Each structure stands twice: as structure tokens, then as C-alpha cells.
């Protein structure tokens, strides 16, 4: 105040600049972020909304902790993580998707473009400011996160990694929203398009995966063998019936049995060819960076029983592996061979079941421990982020060659 009192027209020193720079600068990005965050300072209504949101999250947390037993479980943690991702992917794009066309409509964009702020400064600053708000959601969930983590059987590093990936996914979704806002003239359009993009990634990929399964299906022929009851002599039928009832096959002569073969066709989906559709799903990306849980040895490993993420990982892995020899073998049914095994007395009647059980367990373990691949999904996200920011920066550069259709500069 005092300085201005003494000098009625203070001189300012704005450094001269040259050229037509567009790359983001540290000073400019920071300034734009600050301006945007100041503008977004919540009103009373906003604070009430945040209050309700926080209460809902805490309430859910308390509910889950009351309902759950004391043993280790990763479900609450997985719930929070999904919640944070979901909230972030809704809030970030909602804010960014009105940030450019909205400002332009309000007449506050062009005056900033007339300053020394570059297109990159505006783009990155707007991206970061919307993203920080989503970050704030993460911060509000911290109390529950700490509790959920404590009993999840996860290691701290694993949790931090997943959190970093979540923040990155939210950043990308926010950038995509910003790009739509740079392209579309109207806020309604850009907000819908932003959420549509998220929807395509989260739900669309799964739907597409399901609907493309018939396209990658092969027809397999399979031969089952059954005992031909009609052609057995009375003694044979009685002996076999008794054997099935008692479990004692010693009275049956397997070589004398007449067997029927039945061949039929079935389709198997080569999901290994379409698994990439699932792998680009953000929820799957999150799951693919969370720790593996061995369904057989999780207790010795100090883990909780396989939760949602572990189960999803198993399903995703099974899709990635595709149909296997073991699958085909498990499909095949040979009654006569089973009878022969049992009649030879090598093993009890449970033997066939045991073999089946072992294969199944092995398969479960193989799928559960199948190496994680978040790379495809993360790669796509990097592409989306870079592409979206390139679009935004390009559209913010002045002098404008073309305008968003139906808009004025000012």
C-alpha cells in the first residue's frame, strides 16, 4: 500500500520476450494452476457437498469395519481403491471438460492468452488444477485407507504403487476431458464426451470382450465314451449297478463291457486373442498392479484370502492363457476307462475325482500366479495423456487459424 501511495503510477518491469513460444514453463504452469484453484475455491454449497462426500466415505468405512471379522481381508482396501479411482475419474474430467470452452464462453480465456502465458502453460495448469481436486478426494479417504490397509495383507510399497497408478489414471481421464473441452464448443457436449470416453474404457471394453468371443471361437470335436447299458447282459448290468452302488468294482470285468462312443462339437473361445480388450480397462490395470495372491498358500504367505482383485486377476489370466490341453482333457469323459481304472483296484473310487481336483487346483494356481501385465493398459493411458495434451496445446495456440465452430474469440 505505502509504495503506491507515494508513486501514483508505479513502473512495472515485464521482461521482453520473443518468438511464439508454446511449451509449458514452470512459472506459467504454476501460475495457471494457482489461478484455477483460486477460482475453484469452494463456495459454502461446495463445502457442504464435500462434507457429505467425506461423511459417506467415512460411513462406508465404519460400516465395513463393523461388518467384517478380525481376520485378514483385502476387500475393504480394494473397495476404497475402486472408490477413489471411480470418484477421481468422475470428478477430474467433470472439472476439466468445461475448463476451456467454459472459460472461452465467459470471456476469461482470451485475456490470459494475451499475456506471456504460453499455450502449454494454460494446458498443463488447467490439467493439474482439475487433477488436484481429484487428489483431494484421495486425501479425504486417508483415514479409511489406513484402516483398510492395516488388515489387507498388502505391503506398503504395493499400496503406494497402486495409488500412484490410480492418480495417473485420473490424470489421463482429466486430460481427455480437457481435450474434449478444447474441441467441443459447448460444455454439455464436452462433459458428456468425457464421461463417454471413460465409460468406453471401463464398461465398453468388457462388453466388447464378451461380444467378440464368438468371433474368436473354434469348434472342437470331443469324444465321450459311455457304457452301452442296452447291450449288456443281465449279469453285467447287475454287477455294474452293484459296483456303482457299493463302490466295489472287483466283480466287473471291464474288458467285457460294451462301450458306446459319442462325438459332439463344442466351441471354445480363443480369448488369448481378445484379452487385450480387457487389459486396457482401467479397473483391470489397477488390479494388474496389485499384489498376486496364491490361492493355495496365501496363509503361509501372510496374505488375506484372494479378494476381488485376485479373483479378477485370475479371470483375466484365464482369458489371456486361453483354452489349454488341460481344459480339453477335463471336458472329455470316458466311463469305460474310469471303470477299468477302478476295477484294477489301483485306487479308490475317488481317484478320478482327485486327479480332476489336482488339475483344477493347479490351473487355479497357475492363473492366480500368472505374471501381471499392466503394460498394455498403462501404455494406452500414456498415449491418451500425451495425445490429449497435444490436442489441448495445439487448440490453445494463438493466433487462431480456426475457431471451435460457432464460437467467437471474445
Amino acid at each position, binding site marked *: *500500500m505505502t*509504495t*503506491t501511495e507515494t*508513486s*501514483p*503510477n*508505479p*513502473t*512495472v*518491469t*515485464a*521482461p*521482453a*520476450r*520473443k*518468438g*511464439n*513460444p508454446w511449451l509449458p514453463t514452470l*512459472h*506459467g504452469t504454476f*501460475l495457471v494452476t*494457482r*489461478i484455477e484453484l*483460486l*477460482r*475453484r*475455491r469452494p463456495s459454502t454449497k461446495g463445502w457442504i457437498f464435500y462434507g457429505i462426500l467425506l461423511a459417506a466415505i467415512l460411513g462406508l468405512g465404519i460400516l465395513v469395519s463393523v461388518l467384517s471379522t478380525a481376520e485378514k481381508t483385502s476387500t475393504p482396501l480394494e473397495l476404497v481403491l475402486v472408490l477413489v479411482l471411480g470418484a477421481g475419474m468422475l470428478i477430474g474430467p467433470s472439472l476439466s471438460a468445461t475448463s476451456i470452452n467454459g472459460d472461452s464462453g*465467459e*470471456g*476469461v480465456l*482470451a*485475456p*490470459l*492468452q*494475451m*499475456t*506471456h*502465458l504460453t499455450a502449454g502453460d494454460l494446458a498443463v495448469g488447467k490439467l493439474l488444477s482439475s487433477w488436484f481436486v481429484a487428489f483431494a478426494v484421495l486425501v479425504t479417504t486417508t483415514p479409511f485407507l489406513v484402516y483398510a490397509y492395516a488388515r489387507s495383507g498388502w505391503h506398503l510399497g504395493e499400496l503406494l504403487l497402486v495409488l500412484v497408478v490410480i492418480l495417473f489414471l485420473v490424470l489421463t481421464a482429466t486430460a481427455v476431458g480437457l481435450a474434449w473441452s478444447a474441441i467441443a464448443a459447448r460444455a454439455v457436449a464436452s462433459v458428456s464426451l468425457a464421461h463417454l470416453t471413460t465409460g468406453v474404457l471401463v464398461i465398453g471394453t468388457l462388453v466388447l470382450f464378451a461380444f467378440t468371443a464368438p468371433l474368436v471361437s473354434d469348434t472342437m470335436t470331443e469324444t465321450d465314451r459311455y457304457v452301452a447299458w442296452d447291450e449288456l447282459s443281465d449279469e453285467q448290468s447287475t454287477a455294474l449297478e452293484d459296483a456303482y452302488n457299493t463302490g466295489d468294482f472287483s466283480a466287473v470285468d471291464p474288458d467285457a463291457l460294451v462301450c458306446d462312443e459319442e462325438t459332439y462339437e463344442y466351441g471354445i473361445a480363443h480369448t488369448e486373442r481378445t484379452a487385450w480388450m480387457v487389459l486396457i480397462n482401467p479397473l483391470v490395470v489397477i488390479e494388474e498392479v496389485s499384489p498376486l495372491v496364491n490361492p493355495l498358500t496365501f496363509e503361509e504367505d501372510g496374505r488375506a484370502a484372494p479378494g476381488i482383485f485376485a479373483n479378477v486377476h485370475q479371470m483375466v489370466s484365464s482369458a489371456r492363457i486361453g483354452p489349454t490341453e488341460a481344459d480339453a482333457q477335463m471336458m472329455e469323459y470316458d466311463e469305460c476307462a474310469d471303470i477299468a481304472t477302478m476295477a484294477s483296484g489301483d485306487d479308490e473310487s475317488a481317484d478320478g475325482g482327485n486327479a480332476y481336483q489336482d488339475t483344477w487346483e493347479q490351473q487355479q494356481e497357475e492363473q492366480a500366479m500368472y505374471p501381471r501385465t499392466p503394460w498394455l493398459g498403462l501404455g494406452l493411458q500414456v498415449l491418451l495423456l500425451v495425445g490429449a495434451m497435444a490436442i489441448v496445446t495445439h487448440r490453445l495456440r*494463438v*493466433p*487462431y*487459424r480456426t*475457431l471451435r465452430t460457432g464460437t*467467437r*474469440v*471474445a
Partner: protein
Amino acid sequence: MTILEEAPPITAAIQATGVARAFGSVQAVQDATLTVERGKVTALIGPNGCGKTTLMLMLAGLLRPDAGEIRVAGADPRTDSAAVRAAIGWMPDQLGSWDNLSCLQTLTLVGQSYRIPAAQARAKGLSLLRKVHLEEFADRPTRVLSRGQKQRLSLARALVHDPAVLLLDEPANGLDPRSRVELRQYVREIAAEGRAVLVSSHVLAELDEMVDDAVFMSKGRTLGDDAARMVAHARTRYRVWSLDVDALRRALTDASVPFEEAEGGAMVSIADEAHAQQALAWLVGAGVPVHRFGPAGSALEQTYMAMEEDRR
């Protein structure tokens, strides 16, 4: 001020030649040529939709011209927009402000956007707010401002970095009479500091007293020398009112001064103010009962009305 000392006396602050720009099929600006001198206020006059705003956007470096050459403070907005932005203060015709931020915050942040250190930007912002009589609103959010107050904030925002060239797009819109007079004085002060000012407006009577040069625009074209001649001619027209109209006309006829008849008196052509003073003295000396004597309305308005171009 520094700008005056550094300014090479001859080069124009803005020089535009043959500038054109179309939006799809609409040819907003077809052929605009204008020069804005340092230390002078130049008016850009034309009917609604004739392309004034579009031309200003191109001068400011926000819109790329399809054709033509533009130099602002010696720099080309296409290739050296940073230099142009440093030199130009732009007051848009659209009023926008950051609702949640206070007036002082707004000016400080815009100043910082020009890389002015925060403390300096704040001091400058305060002095500008005082200048445009918004100091009571310094700490109030801009959403409470009325239209005229926003207009003044917008003017202050255009000046935070001491620009050498000022583009004002319809600055008098929404201002009350007192604010208009103040704006006029302020714009003259700014020009007196050696800055170049380009004002677009359709409140012609106001411009008359404020501007040194006028550029007329119609259907996307600037009307060059013709319009200038018309303004020059209109400037020389004086109207004399006499209690005795016949005595006035007789005196003029006797002295073989060409005149047009007008209600309650006559219209005469007088080169400048010194001649006007002599003419008045002569008339009074000749016993003509003159009760009013002055320029015949707004020269710009006369020219504007004489232009046979339509609004779009």
C-alpha cells in the same frame, strides 16, 4: 515516460496493410489498412458487424489473418506474438472476469502472467484500481461488479503491463456519463504518455473530442482517404445562430462568404479555431446579433451518416 523516450518518433505503433479474414463463408474483414501512431488516439468507426472486433483480434495476435501484413511495435503477430503481447493492452468487447477472485487479485494475477513480480503487480493493480475508481472493490469478488464497473476493471486489466499500444473495443459501452467523460480524459492521458491507442466505438459524439485520427470501416473494408477528407471537411463546418437571421445572411452575402442556410442561422466553413475566433469577432463587430456559434455537431457523426453503407 520511458515509452516516449525510447520510441522512435516516426515508426507507427500499428501498421496493417490489406488485412483480410473470413469465418467460413462470412468475409468478416475484406481489406483493412490502417496506421496507428504513437501518442495519438485513433478511432475505428463503423456499423455493427463491419469487422471492427475481428480486425482488433488480428492486431492483437489472437486471430490469424488470411491475407495482409500486420506490424505491432515492429513485430509480426504471426511469428513473434510474444513481442506483440508485451506491447499490446487489449480490452475486449466481451466482459469476462474471474467471479470468485477479487479485483485486486485479478489484476495482480494478470500482472504476474506478464511475468511482473508479484509485489510490483499488486502495487500496479492498486494504482490502476484507484485510477478507474474501483478501489473500494479491491477486495470484493468481481462477480458483484456492475456492468460499467466490470468495464473499468477490464480497462485496468489491459494496462497492468504498461503496454505501448492499447486496443479498446467499444470501451464506452455500459458506462454512465461521468465515467465516459473520465474514460475520455484517461485515454487522452494514456496517449499523452506516448502510447498509441486504437478505440472502436459507435458512440461518435464522444469519440469526436477524444480522437486525433479516425478510420472508418464498412462491410469489412477500411475507407481510406475519402473518409479522412470527409472528416476534415466536417471538422471545418461551423454553425452560427443569430437572433436576426436575415441580418446574418446579409452580412455573409455582402462579404461574399459561402454559406448554407440552416434553421435559425447558417453553416459556414472555417479552417481552424483561430479563424473561428476572427470570424466571430467580425460578425459581432458587423452588428449581427449572434447568440450561438460552434462546430456543427460531431464531425465523425456527420461522416458516418454520410457513408451510404448499410448495417449488416
